[in-house]
């Protein structure tokens, strides 16, 4: 049995509210509470980007926070995975027409998992982070195998992430 640590067993998540209306943020915070309790997957919410493996972003990017988002992303040590939570983070959503809105967060940083919904349901968010954990493990094993820019879209909880399918089946860690 391998003694190397598996990142997917304990993905630490840092959350950044980019340009969000708070709807996705409170649903993300609800994940941490007893009803959903994502700590059973080893998912821990941390405040410091330098401790984190997964960056969860809610809301679109505007001129003022684009630099802050890039800063937070750059501070996360490799390997790292980005989850775009909700339609605003994915495309800009209802605010895409705003004079101040640049669009989805993919304009600034590479995204690995897109979770749709306005606001995203906590079940979909949980699924997105679990899929991100699988990609994280794949990135750790072979940084070149999984390129950011070939993202996963969460549709049904049973759909296997495309990026993880690229690595041999026995190497895919079971996230739960």
């Amino acid at each position, binding site marked *: 049995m391998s003694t190397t640590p598996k990142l997917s067993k304990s993905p630490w998540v840092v959350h950044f*509210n980019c340009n969000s209306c708070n709807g996705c943020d409170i649903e993300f915070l609800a994940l941490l509470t*007893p*009803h959903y309790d994502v700590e059973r997957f080893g998912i821990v919410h941390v405040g410091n*980007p330098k401790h984190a493996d997964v960056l969860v972003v809610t809301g679109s990017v*505007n001129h*003022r926070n684009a630099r802050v988002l890039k800063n937070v992303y750059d501070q996360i040590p490799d390997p790292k995975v980005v989850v775009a939570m909700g339609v605003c983070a994915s495309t800009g959503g209802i*605010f895409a027409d705003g004079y101040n809105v640049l669009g989805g967060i993919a304009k600034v940083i590479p995204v690995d998992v897109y979770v749709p919904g306005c*606001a995203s349901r906590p079940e979909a968010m949980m699924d997105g982070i679990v899929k991100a954990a699988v990609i994280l493990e794949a990135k750790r094993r072979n940084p070149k195998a999984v390129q950011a820019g070939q993202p996963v879209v969460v549709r049904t909880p049973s759909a296997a992430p495309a990026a993880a399918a690229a690595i041999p089946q026995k190497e895919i860690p079971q996230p739960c």
Partner: protein
Amino acid sequence: MIRRNTIPFGPQHPVLPEPIQLRLVMEDEKIIEALPAIGYIHRGLEKIAEKKDFIQDVYLAERICGICSFMHSQNYCQGIESLMNLTVPDRGRYLRTIWAEIHRVHSHLLALGLLADSFGFENLFMQLWRTREIILDIMEQTAGGRVMLGTCCIGGVRKDISSAQATVVLRQLDQVQKECDEILPALLNDYSVKQRTVGVGVLPRDKAHELGAVGPVARASGIGMDYREQGYAAYPDLGFKKVVETAGDCYARTLVRVKEIAESIRMARLALEKAPQGPIAVPFKGNPTGEVLARIEQPRGELNFYIKGNGTRNLERFRVRTPTFANLPPLLHMLTGCQLADVPVIALSIDPCISCTER
């Protein structure tokens, strides 16, 4: 002479769910001055509202804030209805009140939980948010969405609550009441909670009035201002009683929210029982003309919308003044002279909603 240091608090900070920067000018541990830097979540919503159809703007207004979403759409609809001289049917008014009051319970539980988290009482945060999930279940059953309900429309509401659903909701409200009765005394009577909140961030009555505080912040400082008293939706029929405290500190603001939870549950239950049968919405034709200042009492205070229509499908101007914007000057006053360790508690005691403020 003590050197002055400036500490940036935010925009990405563990206790803040939203990005706002407070530049704290410090002498040792004492705060001399607090300067806010905002704009991190400015979405240009007022301009988008002018580009969209005024009926689509109901859903845009709902997305000003995800926490008090229903009340934003309610205020927008009330404004448009007064421009178009529409009278909402009685059942529509009652249903709006039910959803608004249920939203208030969820918002106050959320705020109290975040306050508990800010002074490190994580257990209490978890318990309060577990109770909040029952409220979100009610919203999902009755409206279909957990945070974005989308049930308010111009002229009334889109969905009805059947009597079978109402029975279930009443039972769930009983459960919420029971859990609150167990948890909230722990929040109010705990020694360590009192240590962190009593006498911290005091806002005297005259300062609250001078700086234009609204909502629970004003009511905790002895200003009995609650727009629900003026009577919109079904509030005149429900015997609304406002909650006023006089101490003006973080503890008083917490106490106001705790008492308002009980009052909101009572009103939601009464409205569910008393709601008359009949149509839930009234049809309308035409476009809004003229200008109106729509007001409503949100969980955080009074919300103002200025709506100006020019007889076309698009509004000429849509202006939003949210309660947190009014409560920022009182917050800066409270922060001056406090200790650095008290900043999260004081900031969360006004229940800031930066997404509303910057829209």
